[in-house]
């Protein structure tokens, strides 16, 4: 059980990207004999959620988001070290990129930062990526999820191509797929057969965690 004051301090440490404070809270909590996962789920994860929300509202900016993500990475390592072997979960692996013909990657970069901050292993394969490359990389790194981003209506079709190519290669059941980007919707995801749609960076964290289960 994490007390309310510690939860508040943990959230604040992540939002303020205060590494020293976040580490101090984590160590103190673990040394008191608590289950380290509790401080993660009740304090730090809501904290990084708050960071994502503030970024989406123009209240917090990219350098702050990156620094918060970095602090999150460090406390995640401490929490994992303290966990007994059987409680250690294999982190989800995500392959992500902007589809062929589209060079927009600002939004995708923000998604990558937040996913990493939430403990996922992310392989960012860049922008203007061939459909085959997504599949090759996913097979190579044994990904759980393939994420595709597109800003243009003219390149949305490549998200559909990925579904087709995965089926053709007999790999559709091996990976979950998630789509995002300004013109993309949940209806589009359903239409092409993708497993999920994420509206923004924070939503991508929620949806990918749901997909991985």
């Amino acid at each position, binding site marked *: 059980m994490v007390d309310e004051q510690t939860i508040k301090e943990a959230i604040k440490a992540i939002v303020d990207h205060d590494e020293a404070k976040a580490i101090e809270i984590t160590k103190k909590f673990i040394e008191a004999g608590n289950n380290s996962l509790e401080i993660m789920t009740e304090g730090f994860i809501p904290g990084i959620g708050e960071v994502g929300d503030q970024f989406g*509202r*123009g*209240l*917090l*900016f*990219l*350098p*702050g988001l*990156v*620094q918060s993500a*970095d602090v999150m990475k460090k406390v995640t390592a401490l929490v994992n070290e303290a966990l007994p072997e059987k409680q250690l979960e294999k982190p989800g692996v995500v392959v992500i990129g902007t589809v062929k013909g589209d060079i927009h*990657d*600002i939004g995708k*970069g923000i998604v*990558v*930062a937040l996913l990493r901050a939430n403990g996922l292993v992310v392989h960012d394969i860049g922008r203007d990526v061939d459909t085959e490359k997504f599949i090759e990389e996913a097979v190579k790194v044994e990904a759980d999820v393939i994420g595709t981003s597109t800003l243009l*209506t*003219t390149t949305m079709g490549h998200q559909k191509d990925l579904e087709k190519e995965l089926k053709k290669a007999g790999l559709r059941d091996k990976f979950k797929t998630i789509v995002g980007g*300004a*013109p*993309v*919707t*949940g*209806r*589009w995801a359903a239409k092409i057969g993708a497993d999920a749609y994420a*509206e923004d960076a924070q939503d991508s964290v929620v949806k990918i965690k749901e997909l991985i289960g």
Partner: protein
Amino acid sequence: MATILTRYGDGTMLTMSEKELMQDLEAGTQDAAERGNIPALSKEELAHLFDIFSLPYNFVSVEPGNEVVLTYDAGTLKIRRVGVNVDRIQALQIYEKIMGADTMELCHVDYSFKPIKPIVTMEQPILEQALLSTHVPLFYGAMPNLGTYTQPDGPFPNPSELMPMGDIEGARASYDATVEEAVKDIVYAARAMHASGADGINLDTVGAAGEADFKASLMAADILKKEFPEICIELGMAGEFILGMHGEMEWEGIRLAGMYPHEQVKLAEKAGVTIFGPVVNTNTSESSPWNLSRAITFMKACCDVATIPIHVNMGMGVGAVTVNDHPPVDVVSRASKAMVEICRLDGL
């Protein structure tokens, strides 16, 4: 109870009950009010929006006498993009003589100031010929597009690569360097086009690469206005708030990241901008009433404080217009009518 036929932000058709329509109108204005820290629309304004969405017509419009200036950015690109094979001057003539454009913009297919710099002497005669064969005020324009100044497209290190490696100061230094170069290119091209007789210079999609984009545009406008006090400069934005990619960048002592339209316009005025084109992005998952109510809340706050003309961006994915290559007329006309009647703006 009547059902209202409308759309989602991606253009998909949707029917709503009157109650659902009002709920979405209220939720849209509330979202904008919270994000921008601005007033939500009044009950009367929401009722007016409700009436506009309830009209049974495909196309709706304003009453005679309430028309506003209709202008197009990048028209010489858009007509080619939909497969109409005309050259740029013919495109301008089509917009002016057939589509009723009140102002137009000549632009190059590579719609950024940086690549225009080396070909500006090839662009000048086209502008001069276009001016001789059209009557509407003719702008020359492009995007500041600061992304073209970083690797792999430009000389400076890519902040998007430096930032994830933790090199925040390096990323910020790179953004600062791009501003200096972009200002030089914008001013160079604008001077040339002004000398060739352009009626105005349009800086379009400002802020697409974050606050460095906005800063370069303000600095360029400031230089141009001081050099040519009579010059007309239009500043059209890329998104509803200035993306904080740098986080600490300032102009005239004011931090730029996170600014919403009602704050952006005050800096534009200070820089000597003549016409401001604010943007509100369309959310493709939400309904057209939600998007329009939200967009009008932001635009009204902007119009209320502006002392220069406001030409709201209304097109694919902005101003509550759906994200379609050919936006449907029911959405475009409703959004346009509502913007004009509620915001008291000057142009679309």
